């Protein structure tokens, strides 16, 4: 059934700091970076920071692990006079597009008028994301996981990838293709961290961090901040750029995915999945669209294998056919035609978490906005619909369809 709030809100401002290799942002602080991203997003929207009266974020703003930002400190830092809405989507990076849904909820409830969604990330040596599971003191629940030596998210995802390979014959070449195809898109991105072409040999000699996943299957470790501003359509039309209309957005998931890879109790076929099926079904229900209607897909790529499983969960291909789909070139962006290849939908035209930067999913939202504005580097011609996803992670995960105004 068509979503009651369809096309009533839009993202009107985007802002980001430079992207730094892990730890290189110091001596900048989290609030310094978050503030820069917000001010740039306001400038992009053509509004004053004093007009922000809503904050909708995710991951409890704790992705910096030690230094967090929060609503009160951001208000104090930036001089935001008041907020009528402040909310965070639970769990982790799976909530990033869902936070736009949260912003929409605040706007539609008339709690606020301009809502900022942001992530600021700084990985100093004492709190690297990649080792945070392993270095934290064991609690009674993860005492059933941590002693196995599955110490980081990539280790955990590798176990899911192995099951997918076992069930469906998924080939390691498909993981390579995901990394190479999205690397190609990062080559001419000025702010991308990885801007050199990736040879087969370089991929295959990349250290196996958790077989079947190699270092190059793992996302970048970067620092930086990204903010976007959402408002109602009537206000959006007065903003500086063409609005990126919120056409569909959902977060959630089913218990079969639940605690996901922090648990390993998922039944088949959920175990070898991205846990996105429930959210994908909701989004296609809300919009009446399907994966094939998307002009571009910005798919959360903390690990290459999980891109493949999201392609299946969102219905770009059938369950178990992700390997063949990817290997047929269908996630490629063709610079010559400014479109897809072999009937596919271009994926991560910005290079993604694997190649451009990892700001816990916010760069995918920015690219989605730019694609429907028509202003990005690897612009899909005549781009009307962009899918943005967040996760897989423990629930909730989320997805967003942006529409050209």
């Amino acid at each position: 059934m068509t979503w009651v709030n369809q096309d009533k809100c839009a993202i009107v401002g985007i802002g980001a700091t430079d992207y730094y290799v892990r730890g290189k942002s110091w001596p900048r602080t989290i609030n310094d970076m978050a503030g820069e991203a917000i001010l740039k997003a306001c400038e992009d929207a053509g509004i004053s920071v004093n007009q922000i009266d809503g904050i909708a974020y995710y991951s409890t703003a704790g992705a910096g692990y030690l230094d967090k930002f929060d609503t009160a400190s951001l208000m104090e830092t930036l001089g935001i006079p008041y907020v009528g809405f402040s909310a965070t989507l639970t769990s982790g990076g799976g909530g990033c597009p869902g936070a736009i849904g949260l912003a929409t909820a605040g706007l539609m409830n008339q709690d606020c008028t301009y809502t900022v969604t942001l992530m600021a990330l700084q990985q100093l040596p004492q709190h690297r994301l990649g080792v945070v599971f392993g270095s934290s003191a064991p609690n009674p629940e993860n005492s059933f996981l941590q002693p196995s030596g599955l110490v980081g998210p990539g280790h955990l995802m590798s176990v899911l990838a192995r099951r997918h390979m076992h069930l469906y014959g998924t080939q390691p070449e498909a993981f390579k293709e995901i990394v190479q195809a999205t690397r190609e898109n990062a080559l001419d991105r000025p702010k991308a961290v990885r801007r050199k072409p990736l040879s087969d040999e370089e991929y295959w000699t990349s250290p196996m961090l958790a077989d079947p996943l190699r270092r190059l299957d793992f996302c970048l470790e970067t620092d930086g901040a990204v903010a976007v501003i959402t408002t109602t359509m009537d206000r959006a039309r007065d903003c500086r750029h063409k609005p990126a209309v919120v056409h569909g957005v959902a977060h959630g998931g089913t218990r079969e995915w639940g605690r996901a890879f922090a648990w390993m109790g998922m039944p088949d076929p959920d175990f070898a999945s991205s846990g996105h099926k429930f959210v994908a079904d909701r989004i296609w229900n809300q919009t009446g669209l399907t994966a094939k209607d998307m002009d571009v897909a910005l798919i959360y790529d903390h690990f290459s294998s999980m891109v493949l499983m999201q392609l299946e969960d969102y219905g770009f291909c059938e369950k178990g056919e992700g390997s063949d789909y990817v290997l047929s070139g269908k996630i490629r962006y063709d610079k010559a035609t400014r479109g897809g290849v072999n009937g596919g939908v271009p994926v991560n035209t910005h290079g993604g978490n694997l190649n451009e930067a990892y700001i816990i999913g916010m760069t995918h939202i920015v690219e989605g906005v730019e694609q429907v504005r028509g202003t990005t580097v690897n612009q899909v011609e005549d781009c009307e619909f962009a899918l943005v996803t967040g996760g897989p992670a423990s629930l909730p995960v989320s997805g967003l369809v942006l529409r050209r105004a």
Partner: protein
Amino acid sequence: MSYGPARVLPGEGIKITTNPDTEPFWGAARERRLTACQCGDCGHFRMPPSPFCPKCQSTRKVWPDLPGTGTIFSFAICSKNPRTGEDYVYVPVVVSLDGTDDARLVSNLGGINAEDVRIGQKVEVDWNPIDDGWVLPVFKPVEAL
């Protein structure tokens, strides 16, 4: 790829914590008994143990002795000791426990070359003493007995 022998991670330095929901599992392991949390009403198994049965919401728990065998559901192969960073081949493994309705333990597998590990392989529990007098269930191939 060729990795050679998979070794369970050294018990020294491995810590766990417990709470009243999970402690019976670890108490049994200290006595070299493999158990899992089973609902005292509907019989559904759940791991890690938690206060309520997700099937029937009962809080009654029983802790039956399991056969100590299981099947590899999935695994990874890692090459560095996560504590020291030294070269150290180990196989984190997800094991479906025999005698349950697919309750799973995440553990290590030893007694086999890492490149020979397969999903569906039968494994048997072994015991790895860790810090503070606790004992961790680990696994070895049934064939290796």
